[in-house]
């Protein structure tokens, strides 16, 4: 939780600025939209976080989002498969992609950056070839399946706000992941692998199996996220769907307290990181700023926030050091 204070500070500040200076930020409709977008990107960010904990990286998240997202309507509409078959097939396929990454990284000892960079090209290429570069959509059908991402629940007392159904899988995933990391031996081993893989391996930790598991989880979540994205949007083009989503996922995870060196994670922080990115994007429109400034504003706010967080941490560490010196002498 401590690791998340920095990003929580940025999140609260951005929300306050948007609420004070932006129009209608605190309306139920806007908060509902933000919850939905945060939930969708959080799924990807949680996957990215699991891999980052091991000291690895997954650059193929956006392309897996694309392949899984495009395959779903492609199988449902073009090939008329039953939804009961499509959903497990897509999820299993995504998990197999992760297994493929894990095996290449742990058995062939290839660098995660390279393996997943090749994956980034490979899966988008497959999606484009498979569909003949045609955009894929539900063509007004499959409302029942799309309800997985589009259902909104009324909350008593909150008239205009309705809770998107995507919050349920995200909450479940977050709780399971938080418990896994903090309460299970395997979770501890995963953190130990990220801190020092060699040390963990010599201590008897099955590091190869854990790293593979992390990549399987990441690709599975990217595939699941891709499915939810396409349910939400309705149609997508294989050449651009999910482009750069890995960067949003990685940014949310790192901002949320995952160290790129591995061994550190905060599930709560990852979700706040994902939410901050979404609130920033919306704030730019509600504050009436030019949309061309979007990336510049997001980059600047995050940089200032992260730098301030680091300075505060150093200041606190120095203060503690001084205090301990004073106690000794």
């Amino acid at each position, binding site marked *: 939780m401590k690791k998340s204070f920095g990003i929580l500070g940025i999140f609260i500040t951005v929300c306050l600025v948007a609420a004070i200076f932006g129009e209608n930020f605190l309306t139920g409709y806007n908060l509902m939209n933000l919850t939905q977008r945060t939930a969708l990107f959080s799924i990807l960010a949680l996957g990215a976080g699991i891999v980052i904990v091991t000291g690895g990286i997954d650059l193929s998240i956006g392309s897996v989002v694309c392949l899984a997202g495009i395959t779903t309507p492609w199988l449902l509409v073009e090939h008329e498969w039953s939804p009961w078959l499509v959903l497990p097939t897509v999820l299993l396929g995504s998990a197999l992609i992760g297994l493929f990454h894990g095996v290449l990284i742990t058995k062939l000892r290839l660098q995660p950056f390279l393996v997943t960079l090749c994956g980034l090209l490979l899966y988008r290429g497959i999606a484009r070839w498979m569909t003949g*570069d045609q955009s894929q959509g539900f063509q007004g059908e499959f409302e029942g399946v799309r309800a997985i991402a589009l259902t909104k629940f009324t909350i008593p007392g909150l008239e205009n706000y309705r809770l998107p159904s995507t919050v349920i899988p995200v909450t479940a995933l977050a709780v399971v992941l938080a418990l896994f990391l903090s309460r299970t031996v395997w979770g501890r081993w995963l953190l130990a692998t990220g801190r020092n893989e060699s040390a963990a391996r010599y201590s008897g930790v099955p590091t190869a199996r854990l790293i593979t598991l992390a990549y399987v989880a990441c690709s599975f979540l990217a595939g699941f996220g891709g499915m939810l994205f396409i349910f939400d*949007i309705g149609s997508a*083009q294989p050449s*651009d*769907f999910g482009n750069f989503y890995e960067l949003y996922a990685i940014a949310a995870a790192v901002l949320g307290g995952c160290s790129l060196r591995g061994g550190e994670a905060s599930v709560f922080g990852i979700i706040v990181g994902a939410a901050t990115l979404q609130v920033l994007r919306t704030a730019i*429109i509600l504050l009436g700023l030019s*949309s061309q400034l979007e990336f510049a504003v997001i980059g600047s706010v995050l940089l200032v926030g992260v730098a301030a967080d680091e300075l505060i941490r150093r200041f606190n560490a120095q203060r503690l050091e001084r205090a301990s010196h004073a106690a000794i002498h």
Partner: protein
Amino acid sequence: MKNRILSLVSLSALVAAMATTHVFANGDLVADQKARIAALKDHPDTKPHLAFVSNGVADFWTIAKAGALAAGRELGCQVTVEFPGGGLGDQKRMLEDLVTKGIDGISVSPIDPTNQLEVMQLVAERSFLITNDSDAPSAPRLCYIGMDNYIAGRMCGELARAGLPQGGEVAIFIGRLEQDNAKRRRQGFIDGLLGRSSDPTRYDEPATVINEAGYTIVGTWTDSFDRAKAKANIEDVMIKHPKLALVTGLFEYNSTLAVEVFKQAGKTGKIKIAAFDEGADVLVGIRDGIVLGTVVQDPYGYGFESIKVLHAFNQGNMSMVPANGVLSIPARVIKKDNVDSFWADLKAKLKAGKEASAK
């Protein structure tokens, strides 16, 4: 010493080569292409290899591809169709590679005509250059095949004006504004909506709010083809402007997403949509009366005519190019009364395009 002399000679050769590359002005290149076409009259190339290059990947271009390949079959020439999925850099690479291949003519929809002058000059130097869909008037192109995007934009603006005669708040959504057709389409929409006189050179800044003739154009939002972002843009603008009365999506998916967002927000029919292009949800929306109408182009015609014109150039014939260099294939407005017949024709062309892609 010998090495130094060799280096000097190589450097001079390189500078000379660079100077020769840039010696052609656009006028010279147009004249040069015309002279080469005239020379081909006596020795026509009966089986030229021609290329059609889009500005991205979309169903629109699949239909254009079907047209280009159909023309190739009819005229007995080889046709290569390229869809750059990676933007400007990708399109440049494809054009350079086609020139390297020794292509006999290229029809391209330039993504950023102002900044792609060099690569288009390269094509004009080594092959024949024409543009389609989006023009590059400053490039040495021999003709432009497509509609006038300003006029098409005006048609969409007039459609919006007729659907919202009492005035109100209007928002514009578009993939990107760099390309010529996007700029002209947007300006045409604004001028058509506000009932202004026709002036394609007029330009309203995208960030400026326009209050005129009872309408308030609250802004123009781009998304760089990220559909999640495009959807979020519409949702956020609805929040910022609760009195929004009409939106227009000037790229195909922008209109499709407007239909989707209003459905999800329970605003179907409450905020009007003036659409562009032939997204399936937009056509269903027109049929159901929740979209005012859509302005459509003829991508099949763009593909077919491009290859026909380039083939004629290789026979030494330039007679089909009008004096103003614009071979117009006008846009059409699709409304409730003609949506069914249009859709049936579109499905047939898309099927042909998919079959052509599969081969």
